[in-house]
């Protein structure tokens, strides 16, 4: 939180808010000292007069100066506001955290009690308590404190319960840290930011509530006076001297603004830390397109479903563009299945999104060629390709719940896509939806089509996504980690379904996965990505035996399979993946590579094709031998 406050001061709203608060606090401290006498001096010769050079805002019924009274009342108004807020926040913290410490059943009763309290409008509660507790300043503080405690407690409890479920809280409990200390050490610091923001905003409503009570005569009692009291006094002469009531009103508005603006600025700063505010500064793509390799014309055959040359994906960053994909070329023929593997951050998912034209702003895709079913996706507007992409391209993501609309029936979602792109009638589309659900082996598809996504298991949703793709006649399915969230047996079913689709419809498949075994069970060819480039391209069958890039070999060696030698340690890859903001010169893998030489650190190896596949490594020829020697040792 500490590092956020300076940022609060950098926003215009924050500057105004904090400046106002500072002025008010200074007034609260200084005004009674400087002008206390003038505010209480009575002048019976000059009562209820209008504004004059002597009394800027006129005088009250005892001839006291209203301007100075308003200034002096700042202290009492703000002190009472802060007292009541502190009381409410303190009480709210206690009530909100108690259910986390109490035994489960007692905690639940307490939460229910809080919820009931919330049902009462807080101003009503204040009036009610003020009447019960009697009319005095201290009972008004108590009443307002209690009234704001319940909503605050509810917030504390909701936020706190969220943190209390985190594993680090469980870990602390397991280590024998006592429950109160767990709350103080782990829960409170992690909910502090929203609570501080909320308390600041609450303060402004407390100010108003207190003013209201005083105005009604059940708050501050004479001879003490706060702004509410002054407003009440001034109301009688509103027609002769409107300033008498307006001035305290203005004080309310300014103070309320000070609290709200500060809270608002704080909320904006705290909340914004996860969001990136980066924008492109220039309209032109700042990506340099490298000269194309020669002799790739033979790839551009009619049978190619997808042909991508030198694909770049960039995002604007604070220090220039960040490029998670840096020149990827790939082609998929009809019915071909190609897998892409790599660590997180290697650019494999970005590649998939770019190919499927699903990359959101401010991401930018540039390529020397990006052709899908002989259509140049870079030509014309994105909407020109909607029909083609809608019918011929299917996309399956890791989390199917986020790609299905939770409030629409499964059948309607399938129908919607098909009617838009294929011009089917409602009945035709509906029949086809049921037929497609049957094709992905969902039992009782008629009933399933009428259900909502939450009634489906993860595997069923994933099959529904594939069914949605099959509403058209997809030439390509892009599947990004389609089975990562699924159980093993369900994973098998989904992978089998992908294979079946490919066999029956000649659909090409681009399968992105971190799991080498998943990719090699489905795909003909595997592309290994590292730091936004393809570093090796080889047939799946050769993956375990003929991989030459040291990264590919390390990836395979790091993951045990059912034949792994139990006596040898698994391969480890030292160091960290490359940060796309800071890609080194030369081979991006050099820093982690056991074979790296000076050349690797200076010159970037290019992907070179040969009999087995393609590999981008200066030591592709020796890599295999060194490995075998290492294993023999």
């Amino acid at each position, binding site marked *: 939180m500490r590092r956020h406050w300076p940022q609060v001061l950098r926003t215009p709203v924050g500057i105004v808010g904090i400046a106002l608060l500072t002025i008010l606090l200074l007034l609260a401290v200084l005004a009674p000292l400087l002008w206390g006498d003038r505010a209480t001096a009575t002048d019976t010769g000059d009562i209820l007069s209008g504004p004059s050079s002597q009394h800027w805002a006129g005088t009250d019924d005892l001839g006291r100066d209203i301007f100075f009274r308003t200034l002096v009342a700042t202290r009492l108004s703000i002190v009472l506001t802060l007292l009541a807020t502190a009381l409410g926040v303190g009480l709210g913290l206690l009530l909100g955290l108690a259910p986390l410490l109490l035994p489960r059943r007692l905690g639940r009763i307490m939460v229910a009690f809080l919820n009931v309290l919330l049902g009462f409008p807080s101003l009503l509660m204040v009036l009610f308590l003020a009447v019960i507790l009697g009319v005095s300043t201290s009972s008004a503080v108590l009443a307002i404190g209690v009234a704001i405690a319940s909503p605050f407690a509810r917030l504390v409890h909701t936020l706190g319960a969220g943190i209390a479920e985190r594993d*680090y809280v469980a870990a602390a409990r397991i280590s024998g840290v006592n429950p109160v200390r767990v709350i103080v*050490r782990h829960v409170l*610091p992690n909910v502090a930011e929203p609570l501080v923001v909320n308390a600041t905003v609450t303060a402004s409503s407390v100010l108003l509530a207190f003013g209201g009570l005083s105005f009604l005569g059940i708050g501050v009692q004479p001879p003490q006076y706060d702004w509410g009291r002054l407003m009440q006094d001034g109301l009688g002469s509103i027609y002769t001297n409107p300033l008498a009531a307006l001035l305290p009103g203005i004080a309310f508005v300014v103070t309320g603004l000070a609290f709200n603006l500060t809270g608002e600025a704080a909320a904006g700063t705290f909340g914004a830390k996860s969001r990136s505010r980066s924008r492109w500064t220039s309209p032109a793509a700042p990506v340099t397109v490298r000269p194309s390799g020669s002799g790739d014309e033979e790839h551009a055959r009619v049978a190619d479903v997808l042909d991508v040359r030198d694909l770049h994906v960039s995002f604007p960053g604070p220090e220039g563009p960040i490029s998670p994909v840096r020149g990827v070329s790939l082609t998929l023929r009809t019915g071909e299945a190609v897998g892409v593997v790599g660590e*997180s951050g290697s650019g494999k998912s970005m590649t998939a999104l770019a190919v499927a034209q699903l990359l959101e702003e401010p991401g930018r895709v540039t390529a020397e060629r990006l052709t899908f079913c002989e259509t140049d996706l870079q030509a014309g507007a994105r909407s020109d390709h909607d029909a083609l992409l809608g019918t011929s391209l299917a996309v399956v993501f890791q989390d199917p719940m986020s790609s299905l609309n939770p409030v629409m029936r499964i059948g309607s979602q399938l129908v919607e896509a098909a009617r838009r792109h294929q011009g089917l009638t409602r009945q035709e589309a509906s029949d086809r939806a049921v037929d497609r659900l049957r094709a992905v082996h969902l039992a009782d598809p008629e009933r399933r089509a009428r259900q909502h996504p939450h009634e489906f298991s993860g595997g069923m949703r994933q099959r529904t996504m594939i069914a949605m793709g099959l509403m058209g006649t997809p030439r390509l399915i892009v599947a990004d980690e389609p089975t990562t969230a699924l159980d*093993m047996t369900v994973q098998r079913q989904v992978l089998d379904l992908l294979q079946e689709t490919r066999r029956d419809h000649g659909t090409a498949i681009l399968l992105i996965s971190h799991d080498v075994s998943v990719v*090699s069970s489905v795909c003909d060819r595997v592309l290994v990505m590292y730091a936004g480039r393809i570093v090796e391209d080889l047939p799946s069958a050769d*993956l375990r035996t003929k991989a030459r890039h040291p990264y590919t070999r390390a990836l395979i060696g790091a993951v045990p399979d059912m034949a792994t030698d139990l006596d040898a340690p698994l391969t480890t890859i030292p160091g960290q993946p490359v940060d796309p903001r800071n890609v080194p010169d030369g081979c991006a893998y050099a820093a982690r590579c056991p074979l790296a030489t000076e050349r690797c650190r200076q010159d970037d190896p290019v992907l070179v094709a040969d009999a087995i596949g393609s590999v981008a490594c200066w030591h592709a020829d020796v890599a295999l031998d060194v490995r075998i020697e290492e294993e023999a040792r």
Partner: protein
Amino acid sequence: MSRLDFEDVTVRYGHHTVLDRVSLTVPEGQIMGLVGESGSGKSTLARAAVGLAPLDGGRILLDGQPVRHRGRRRPIQMVFQDPFSSLDPRMSIGRSIAEALPDRLGRGPRAAEIARLVQLVHLDPDRAADAPSRLSGGQRQRVAIARALAGRPSVVLADEITSALDVSVQGAILNLVREMQRETGLTVLFISHNLAVVRYVATHVAVMAGGRIVEQGPTADVFANPASAYTRELLASIPGPA
């Protein structure tokens, strides 16, 4: 070195029975794998052992004595799946580890103990002052293991500790688990949905489905000659080259 016994352990959430009279012995000084699909109850079994899930029946014994969930010394420790939520983002990793130390130590001995634990999991002891946000997923998981070891436990429960990690770090963590266990002779219950991972680290394995143990025994035997149909189905689901 201790033996962990689950005897007829039952856990219910509302009307849903998550664990249905589970009896399982984690043998002393061994790594026992626990495999099963999501919802089979394997995580709940671990949470019951450390007191995070209340028992509705049965008991959990450590060397024949009921496990205590009170006080500063906790003989059973746990490492969680997600290294991004298992460390308090506002605490340095040194403080997170220190919190799990069972004895109050002076400043010097405490720093030395933290450095020892950090080194034990192959991290640079200078990093003890770092916030978790400066560590990668694999490094965080090492810290979580160090924290579990800080309590000087006799049993460690590892709940899917590699499934949130990148493939490139998975191997390093698995190596670390095997190395730790060999050096300290800890008893480990290693929960995973990945049969190949369990085969690599565990000498014994138990298979769970629908809140029950369907099969258990030495890993090599169970995987070579699965007795239950469910285990056979699991083994058949392992993706391999087409």
